């Protein structure tokens, strides 16, 4: 009986020990990571905080260059047409002593448009507030060339006063970048830029003139061209201006209503030939600064970098292609 009792108690002890081992120190079921969702890949490329940080860093670096009137280090924060424009602006400032007011870029923004597209190059469009001296808003185009490079300020266009901008998806959801051959629009972005260049060159005589709404840049260029033309005619000189889109320098962001906001670089060459043995002189302060002490001849060729922002509506829309902003800066003045 005693041995039996012992066996029973031993068995009970063993059983309870087994239970202790199996039931004790349990942490629950091992969790498994969920499968990657589509929403993860459709997230915006930057958060608004990241955009602000990136933009602030770039604008601070530009401000340093502005203050020092040096172009050193500009290429680290700028690329594309804006690098050429700002280099010229600082060069002019070095001569004139003052940076043009139009170079101001406000640090506050009204809107940022961040795409969800994966792959590079990537763009971010940001619209600033008006400047302290009530200049119009700036459309900033930041561009990331590759994954291992950072965003750079690729283009700046001063928006025309009172222009109606298209609506974009909020940055928390993210927009989509457009393609330059998108055929669901009134015209492909590439065509729009080429045709607008023609309109700028030929004014109302352009066969595309009616496809584009009237805008401030066209008016200004027409007025300038007319004034110079009158002067030239007095001394039997000639003038001609050619506008050429720069291949590859185009950034597109799709708006919420299906249209595309296209920012592109159009280079122009303005050739002025004075008649009657006269010398052709620079036509503006910036041209003068850029020409410097160069020896003037009868012919002067000035190269301009133009950044135009066009809104190309969707094919279904009744609206015309509209220029919403632009920047124009002489980058080279030479006597030939």
């Amino acid at each position: 009986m005693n041995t039996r009792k012992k066996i029973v108690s031993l068995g009970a002890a063993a059983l309870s020990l087994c239970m202790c081992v199996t039931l004790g120190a349990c942490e629950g079921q091992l969790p498994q990571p969920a499968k990657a969702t589509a929403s993860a890949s459709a997230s915006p490329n930057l958060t608004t905080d990241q955009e602000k940080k990136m933009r602030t860093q770039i604008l601070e670096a530009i401000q340093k260059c502005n203050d020092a009137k040096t172009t050193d280090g500009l290429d680290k924060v700028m690329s594309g047409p804006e690098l050429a424009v700002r280099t010229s602006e600082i060069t002019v400032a070095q001569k004139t002593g003052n940076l043009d007011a139009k170079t101001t870029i406000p640090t506050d923004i009204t809107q940022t448009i961040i795409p969800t597209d994966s792959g590079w190059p990537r763009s971010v469009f940001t619209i600033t507030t008006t400047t302290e001296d009530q200049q119009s808003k700036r459309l900033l185009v930041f561009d990331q060339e590759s994954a291992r490079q950072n965003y750079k300020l690729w283009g700046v266009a001063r928006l025309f006063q009172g222009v109606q901008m298209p609506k974009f998806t909020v940055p928390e959801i993210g927009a989509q970048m457009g393609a330059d051959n998108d055929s669901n629009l009134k015209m492909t972005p590439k065509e729009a830029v080429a045709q607008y260049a023609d309109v700028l060159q030929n004014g109302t005589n352009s066969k595309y003139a009616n496809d584009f709404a009237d805008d401030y840049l066209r008016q200004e260029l027409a007025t300038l061209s007319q004034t110079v033309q009158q002067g030239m005619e007095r001394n039997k000189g000639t003038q001609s201006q050619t506008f050429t889109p720069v291949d590859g320098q185009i950034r597109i962001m799709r708006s919420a209503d299906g249209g595309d906001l296209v920012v592109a670089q159009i280079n122009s060459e303005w050739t002025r030939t004075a008649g009657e043995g006269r010398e052709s002189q620079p036509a503006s302060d910036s041209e003068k600064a850029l020409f410097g002490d160069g020896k003037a001849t009868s012919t002067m060729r000035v190269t301009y970098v133009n950044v135009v922002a066009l809104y190309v509506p969707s094919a279904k829309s009744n609206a015309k292609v509209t220029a919403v902003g632009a920047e124009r800066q002489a980058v080279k003045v030479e006597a030939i």
Partner: protein
Amino acid sequence: MKKDAPVKKEPTRHAKIMRGIVTPIFGLLAVACIVLGVLNQTIWKPNPSISASAPVENTQYLLIDQGVADLVDSTVTVTATSASATANDGVCMALTTSKDAAGWLAGQSYERITGLSSWTELSHSMQEAQGEAKTSDADVAFKDSDMWSQVSCDAGRASLNLKEATDTSVILVDFGQKISDGTIDLHWTRHNIPNFALPWYFGGGLCAILAVLCASVFAMDMSARRKRISARAEKARAERHERRKEEPKISEALAGSLAALKPRGKSKKRGAARHGRHSGSAGATGRVQAGESTPTIVDPHSRNMLAERTSAAGADTGAGLGTGDAVNANETETSAQNTQDTAATSVISPEELQSYFARFAQEVGVDDSAQTAADSADDSANNSTTSSDASSGTSSDTDGKEND
């Protein structure tokens, strides 16, 4: 009940087993469950702090998959260490999205952390990133990239403390050079710890209830229990019976309603009675005449409650009252001659009806004579209907005259 007394004095074998073996087993189980519950709540409580690690070998980059950082809890501390990682910025760790990480890693091989292989180990594998590694002068250092939402760099060790890790973010680690002595460690502090004590308490409670039941109800002799149950049921049945006596039976109510419907249909056919209801109410006189020779039919519409009451007060007819007040409620006449009528309409007492059904059950299907009997019963019923129709016809005629 008399038999139960000796059973109580000397427990049966069944009761012995229930009380001596089953009850203690359940009791022990209950105690064990509660003890285990307490243990699970105290010393075996799941650790809120979970640390899992994996070695990092022969690689410069490490990527923690999306959904891993928040696997256990959204509060996580990720630490990457490598004593030899002192080149460039040392160890750098960044929180980013999978597409940005893929862009940075393009063309590089990296160690991938895919999840937990146990509570202390991370599952990992070597992977080759798609794409081509492109370098340019404009490339930035890892820590300077715009793509990271959080970044931390230090010589030999980098750490990120995430308060709200999401399942969409990944963590990318750059050791600055190829290393083989690295470790990646994820430390979570769980806010929702699984409660393993509650099921034990529940089980314990259940066992305790079962133990009590085994010692009491289940230990009782089955036959005694059944008897007790049957006695109780019998009592209940008797009570119900008593109660039912006071109210009309369904069969009676049905018979009454049918009787009310039948004559109306037939009288219409014969064109004698115009209004069933009128004929019913006025037909008492006619019925008295016919009722002497043929069996009477109960017509609840032709009853006078007042008459019933007075007659009941005068002399308890017993069986007649047994059919219920509802049946009696429609009596119209109050004269003395109707005492006879009341007796005639209240022929079937409940006892009689029951005995009739008992007999009927015995007779049905036994022989043809039963069928014949039933047929003859039908015939007599028909006869009575005819007579009642006749009487109602007469009465409605009277009605018509009165109306005229």
